């Protein structure tokens, strides 16, 4: 019999933190600033608070189903068909976001340093890392997260710290940015920034202390929220709106601005290591979840044979957008509008139905026993 894979709560929290926060090094602070102007950081702060509350609600509802993943719960709620349907939905969500992020990373790396390399070659290199990660499985990937995430977090904080001379608080005014209405409307859609939190519901069966899954989620939301808010706040303090909407790689721009004396004037290339490490961790985790969801949705015995077909699919999908701009559009105008529903509303609905049916069943049993 195979040894059961288990991961610690700290490892799970690191996976969540990386999944949610990786967008910081892509386009996140810019898109936030486009949506809410100088008040982007307030919008993210409010979003974090709302996500936290939603998660508390989900945690409460999930208590009865601790140790079961979302597909198990959907089977309890809507039977085998429900499990398959929701499996396909979550599979589609992960595949969509993985292929777009893969394309974005590849394009960004191409712009930063490999300007003459075809984008497909860069994507292939990322794919190689993804395959190894997904092949070795959740245990290896989660352990690597434990080693890498703190180092990456420190490196990112250093970027923010070295930019301190450029910060100006007055750049945050007008404090409400594009207005309360923009904050409210865009804020709802931007709950999607936390959409990767849904991965926690698929990590459930692997948690060593499954009863404490709420803690994992809370830590994950707190730290990822903290990093998202910090990154937006620092970016907006460093670059005046509307200049802040122009840099296609905001954090790279901030890294470029670092000057420590005459000798260390152009150290941003070293941050490629951070970019690439984040990307490898994010993408390999996503590929793992994709194969896992497919395996669970269709009750397959083996997961590893799915890696090859899915990497081909993701590779192909990532080449569908014509250019970086199309990829960004695909994320901003399609994914972000629906992702929050799939990640937060669907689980609430599934859990509500499952709880209701469980209660009905227990009542029926009580009646029959009487």
């Amino acid at each position, binding site marked *: 019999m195979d040894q059961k894979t288990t991961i610690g709560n700290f490892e799970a929290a690191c996976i969540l933190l990386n999944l949610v926060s990786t967008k910081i090094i892509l386009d996140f602070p810019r898109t936030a600033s486009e949506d809410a102007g100088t008040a982007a950081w307030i919008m993210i702060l409010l979003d974090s608070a709302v996500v936290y509350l939603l998660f508390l609600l989900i945690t409460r509802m999930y208590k009865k189903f601790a140790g079961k993943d979302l597909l198990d719960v959907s089977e309890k709620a809507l039977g085998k068909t429900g499990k398959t349907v929701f499996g396909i939905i979550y599979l589609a969500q992960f595949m969509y976001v993985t292929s777009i992020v893969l394309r974005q990373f590849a394009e960004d790396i191409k712009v930063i340093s490999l300007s003459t390399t075809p984008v497909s070659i860069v994507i292939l290199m990322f794919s190689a890392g993804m395959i190894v990660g997904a092949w070795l499985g959740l245990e290896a990937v989660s352990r*690597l997260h434990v080693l890498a995430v703190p180092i990456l977090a420190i490196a990112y904080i250093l970027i923010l710290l070295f930019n301190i001379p450029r910060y100006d608080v007055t750049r945050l005014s007008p404090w409400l940015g594009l207005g309360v209405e923009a904050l409210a409307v865009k804020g709802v859609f931007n709950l999607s920034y936390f959409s990767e939190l849904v991965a926690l519901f698929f990590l459930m069966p692997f948690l060593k202390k499954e009863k404490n899954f709420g803690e994992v989620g809370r830590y994950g939301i707190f730290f990822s929220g903290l990093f998202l808010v910090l990154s937006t706040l620092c970016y907006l303090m460093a670059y005046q709106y509307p200049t802040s909407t122009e840099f296609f790689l905001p954090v790279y721009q901030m890294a470029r601005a670092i000057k420590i004396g005459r000798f260390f004037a152009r150290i941003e290339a070293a941050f490629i290591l951070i970019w690439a490490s984040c990307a490898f961790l994010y993408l*390999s985790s996503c590929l793992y979840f994709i194969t896992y969801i497919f395996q669970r949705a269709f009750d397959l015995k*083996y997961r590893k044979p799915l890696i090859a077909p899915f990497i081909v699919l993701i590779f192909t999908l990532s080449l569908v957008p014509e250019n970086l701009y199309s990829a960004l559009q695909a994320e901003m105008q399609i994914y972000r509008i629906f992702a929050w529903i799939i990640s937060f509303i669907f689980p609430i609905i599934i859990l509500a139905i499952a709880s209701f049916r469980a209660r009905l069943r227990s009542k029926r049993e009580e009646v029959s026993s009487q």
Partner: protein
Amino acid sequence: MKGLASFLKSVFLFKPAEPKNPFVLDDFENKSANPDDGRSDGYDGEKGADEKDGENREQRKSDRRKKITKPVLLSGNDDTESDDNKSDDKDEKDDRISSSVETCLAVIKERYSADINADFKIREFKVRIRDRAYPAFVCFFDGLVDTSIVNNNILVPLMTLSVMPMETEDRSLQEIVNDHLIPQNQLKMCRSYQEVVDEINFGGAGIFIDSLDVAFAADVKGWEHRNVEQPTSELNIRGPRESFIESNRANSALLRKILKDENLIVEDVLVGERSKTPCSIVYIKTIANSRLVDEVRKRLKSIKIAYLRDAGELEQFIEDDTFLPAPQMLLTERPDRVAAYLGEGRVAILVHGSPFAIVVPVTFFNLIHSPEDYYLRYPYSTLLRIVRILGILITLYLPAVYLAITNYHQEMLPTDLLLAIASAREKVPFPTIVSILIMEISFELIREAGIRIPGPIGPTLSIVGGLILGQAAVSANLVSPILIIIVAVTGIGSFAVPDFSLGYSFRALRFIYILLAGFAGLLGISLGMFIHFLLLINAKSFGVPFFAPFAPKTTGKRTNTVFRSPLWKEEDRPDFVNPKDVKQQPFVSRGWVVSEKGVRTDGSEDNDR
């Protein structure tokens, strides 16, 4: 063609993996049915079944190849089994020692081809007991035994002392010989020829006496061996300077001398179907996890090999992952180092004929420690560890990073440095990757040649290779001077890796990193690092994750991993080894601080001091 076809088939078609049950060292001490004796029934049963399965499979395969159709047995399997048992019984009977010394002599002569085996000696004589002379002989290998012991402790008593008056009336001949006539401290009574032969092969003397259906095997080992000398591959300034030698018992004695603990167990296992090399599993009974000891025993006993010559061979037979780019056990020639690890609850394996002991389980961090770390004050050893880690990083990444920066990320360099590098490279006709590969391969050649050639010429070659060739290469504009610096620093960094085997791993991986950097700059290096770390993190050494206690994060303290803490702070043994007793020393290990520094024994400090 057939092989190619099956390879292609294995690439494209999925074949479900065989069910695995990897060993994981957890803290459930009493999980196995009988943890202390460790010879778990399950194992033997499993082994038997596996062996049978394996044999049957082999048989089927060979049958298929030969296209032999076997007749169906009418009597069924039971008969074959009983036939097997019968033949076993027959073999045992044949192997029993005969009471006729002539028969014994003939058997031994035949077994050892005594007529052509020049170093095999047989001395025939007579033993006089109760006024009767019994023909007898003693046999041994000349050179393996101490002949003075054979003369004084075997031949003299048997040939001359036997005529002395003794109270022998109601005692058997066997008892008289055993109790009075062979004054030897290690005497074994053997009932089969094989037992005697095994003893003779390992420096014993076989004694056969007429009318006895047993033989005596006396331990009279006396072969030539090296004295205990200074270690050659793990040198130090502070600390003991003894190293293991090629004798198993001498090595276990070296450990006993350091530990002085009656709970130190030295358990012998013979490995090698022909060589029957004695290997010893060494552990402290009250500290080492029983399941770990069981696992070591199980792996050693399961090895089917003709000859085992060295610990390096044994390492390859018992390691968890053959293809991992890092060693999964520690081979050391220092008894003090092994003793320290035994004290932490690990297990050591000694192999007769090898001056290296194997220590399991180990983590990556153990491999970057030096034995001297413990003998130096902790600030110094912490500094040394940082230097060592820097050396490792330089060995692995410096040439690759240089290549990535000069080829892809020139903007990273400050202008002055960029100009210096550019002007140095101006006249070099090769691309940087070619220059680096030329230099790295040359460096490896010099290193390999330096080890292989006779001693006095070694330093000359290093000087010729290192200085003159390097200078000539720069003058001939084949490589840039900066590249010489890079390669030299990389080489020096590789010498700072304390573990010999890990050093090899880094030397090999350096080339992969260079190729990846040449292909995609820092992205290539990141890909290499990602896969390298994934493989290392996924690895286990005898059930212990290779990157414990960081990945996975364990509950115990993380002292003595990357950095060192003061010795008095290392109160616990490593928790990932799951020792029987985690506490190594009490919270206050320096009794004097209670009175002088106001530290209380419950762990709190006196705020008023």
